[in-house]
């Protein structure tokens, strides 16, 4: 072969290689292609056979071209090899691996949320006993024995000691609280309470209450209104309207019932608010002089408000859960929306 046609053929080999490598999809055919062009039996592999017919000058020239082509092939081979090796098939809609998500109960996470909000509003947060005396739960709160007011709280009593019970409301800590932390003071007492009550979608024999107390020379309904406005707004993470109505509790005077605008339907009417647009969420009032006296506080000098709300009720409204027993279920599925 003449020099020119030899040169042409070498360059032609490169072109053919460049074309064929485009079709290569796997390492095996890539290696086969390399052998086809650079292997011992290939045209380029046997190139020295053609050198006999060439002058030394020509050999130098062809040799140079040959080396350039060979390097280009090697280079292209390596580049394609890397591309093939890096190639991964993955669908990003793959679900990932199965694990158990660890969760806290909705009661736990919301309990925390609520204590955080009240801390921000300047309330101390206290723990208090679940088992209390009849005096703490009733008498100290102006709920005498043989009084129909006691019917408001169906009670689970202890076998012994006598006259002890599972507290029916967190108000049972009011007098102890005020004896311990003298005014001016502002605090909440969150915790579990117990009722001798049949269970249904709205009621259970255990549930959580949050009791709030503020006693100072000033604390009054306008301050309570501020606290409620802020609390509900922060808890539900949206603006809610507030409505105060007169009510009766033996341990507050005046007593009120607190409604919020329905967080489910925004007052347009739904079964949850019974088409009234309002939801009853708390009871409150100015602490009765009887209670202040029990705590050795001069009711002409100090005054204050107290309120109580149910944790489960708030959770059910916020997360749109229609049965309190879901919150009291040991099933981990009940934790799913808890953060």
């Amino acid at each position, binding site marked *: 072969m003449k020099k020119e046609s030899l040169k042409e053929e070498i360059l032609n080999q490169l072109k053919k290689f460049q074309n064929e490598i485009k079709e290569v999809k796997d390492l095996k055919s890539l290696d086969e292609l390399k052998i086809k062009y650079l292997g011992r039996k290939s045209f380029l592999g046997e190139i020295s056979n053609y050198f006999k017919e060439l002058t030394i000058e020509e050999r130098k020239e062809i040799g140079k071209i040959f080396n350039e082509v060979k390097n280009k092939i090697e280079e292209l081979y390596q580049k394609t090899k890397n591309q093939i090796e890096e190639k991964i098939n993955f669908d990003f809609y793959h679900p990932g691996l199965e694990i158990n998500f660890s969760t806290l109960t909705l009661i736990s996470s919301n309990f925390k949320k609520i204590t955080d909000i009240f801390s921000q509003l300047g309330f101390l947060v206290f723990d208090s006993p679940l088992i209390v005396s009849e005096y703490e739960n009733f008498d100290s709160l102006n709920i005498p024995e043989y009084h129909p007011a006691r019917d408001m709280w169906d009670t689970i009593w202890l076998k012994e000691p006598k006259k002890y019970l599972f507290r029916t409301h967190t108000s049972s800590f009011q007098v102890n609280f005020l004896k311990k932390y003298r005014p001016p003071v502002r605090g909440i007492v969150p915790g579990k309470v117990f009722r001798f009550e049949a269970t249904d979608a709205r009621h259970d024999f255990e549930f959580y209450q949050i009791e709030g107390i503020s006693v100072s020379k000033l604390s009054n309904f306008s*301050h309570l209104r501020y606290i409620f406005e802020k609390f509900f707004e922060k808890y539900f993470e949206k603006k809610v309207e507030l409505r105060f109505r007169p009510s009766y509790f033996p341990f507050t005077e*005046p007593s009120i019932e607190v409604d919020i605008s329905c967080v489910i339907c925004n007052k347009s009417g739904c079964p949850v608010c019974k088409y009234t647009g309002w939801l009853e969420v708390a009871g409150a009032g*100015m602490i009765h002089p009887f209670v202040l006296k029990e705590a050795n506080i001069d009711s002409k000098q100090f005054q204050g408000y107290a309120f109580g709300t149910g944790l489960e009720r708030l959770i059910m409204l916020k997360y749109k859960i229609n049965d309190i027993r879901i919150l009291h279920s040991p099933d981990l599925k009940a934790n799913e929306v808890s953060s």
Partner: protein
Amino acid sequence: MKFRVKDLKNYFKDKNLNWEKVSEVLTMKAFETVYNDGILDVDILPNRFSDAGSIIGISQEISALLEKKLNLPKIKIKENNKKITNYVKVLNKTKKATHYFGRVILNVKNSQSPQWLKEFVEFYGLNSVNLIVDLANFVMFEYGAPLHVFDLDKIKNKKIIVREAKPNEVFISLDEKEYKLKGGEILITDEEKILALAGIKGSKFAEVDLNTKNIFIEAAVFDSGTIYKTSKSLNLKTEASYRFERKVIPQRTLMALERISSLIYDLAGGEILKGKIFIGTIEKPKPITVDLERMKNFLGIEIKNEIILKYLKNLRIKIIKKEKEKIVILPPEDRIDLKNEEDIFEEILRFYGVDNVLQSFEPAYHESYLDENIELNYRIKNILKELGFSEVYYYNFINDKDLENFKDLLEEKNFVSALNPISENYKYFEFSLLPNLLKSFRSNQKNFKNLKLFRIEKIAFLENKNIKEKYSLCFGVSSKDKIQSLKEIKTAFNYLKNKLNIKDDEEFIELKNNFSSIAAKILVDNKKIGIIGVINNKIKELYDLDFEIAFLELDLEELKRLVNSFKEFIYWGDYPEIIRDLSFFVNKEINTKSVLKTLIKEKINNLKEIKILDIYFPENYDNKKSITLRFVFQNQKRTLKEEEVDQEIEKIVNILTKNFKAQIR
């Protein structure tokens, strides 16, 4: 209480009241009310039932709130000149009958009730009996004062004795049910028979029937507490008992007596005898001093004094003295709930509108504080969550089966039981969270594998008859293999300790109990802080558990003392560590902790740390266990040489062989 608007209408001069509006105003200023289809459903508050729980009572409230004039019944009594005292004698032997009034009407002509009266009593929830009985009920709903009419001719010697029951006396009611009395109940009797269980129910003995000619009308007030107690213990609730429990106003009772007498006279004829039985004194309302300045601060409202005075007038409250901001007032006779200054504040606030109070900000008086138990609970919950544990809710009560199987956990203490448990499943308060944690595993084992669950709750027990409550933490791991589950629970324990910055110096003392394959109590400074173990096959079966469950229960009161909020930093050092692991066999009875303690006491140069890497029980050596320890050597000033460490290891080997007959592997 439900009212028919067609009844209420008769008590107002204005015949065109807007009842929708009435209902709205009542809701916002008195009682939650729903108006529907001619019926006003008013949720009268318990302290107001005595004055407002009647047709006249609620009308009075509406009249005051909407400034509408009342149209009250005009009562005229035409007495004849026969003296009542010649026809009936009443002897009151108990203070529990605070007021006893009565009238006698002779020669009445009883009959069936007219249609309007039948419909009336039926709407208010009673059966129509006859004209006289129905009229008594009519007046009860009208004035809120229960009345009782007796057939005078059936009363022995026409002598009524009001007295307290003796223990075990038996009362037979109108519907011929027998009630055994405890003693102390109030009875209306004659010399032979019990005529009525006062304030609750009558008997057959002096019942008014269609043949009755001469009647004695009882209008009385009985002690509210006694009626409440009696009604509750006999489980006998009536319209009358409901009212007496909530206190009946003597003035209203007296009015009701006159009202029924005139109604019977008009509808059943007869002769009303001259005079009436009048036992008891009617107390005048006591004056209350009201500080209007204090009121404004107490309620958080701005209100003009003239408005306050208008509200008071509407409420029929008399002002008997006025000095600048201080007034002395007299409540109306039928508002026995108005006793102190704050009660008057409430009335003003209601009329002002409690919903009209504007919000204002009161600064805090102290820095914030979170109860340390609650704070620790939050910390632990987050740590366990980090570690893949989930919290579960369970009720705080356990049943007989739980008590039987886990009573070892009580140790010397006693459990707390409910006198009236909500059900067989919830009889005792938890003294350990473990039984109910196991039930939570059962609830979840179908849906989740390798469960890691925990609970933090209060437990309670009796210690020398005193109640002791404290927080407990119980967590568990499920696995196919007992050893595996124990290893996992140990991992979690170590992690928790580390995150709570608790020092590593607990001891495990193995113990036997009814529910574990193997268990140990955990001691720190010789104080028990908890129990660790894995449940045995019997419990697995009894609680329907599909997996092995290792558990750890910690006394958070004890743990709290060991917790630190942070640890001081220790620099890792400039020179490399040399690590040597040493495995050896010792007799399985040897306490691993004592091996460590012995080594720590010895002077071993440059030893920075000893860690237990592994402990296992080889199958071929019955009485041996294998311990692998890791020794970390480091010098703070220079790089250690291997030979130096070799020497120390030799020292360690000698100590182990000498003290524990260890065979180095």
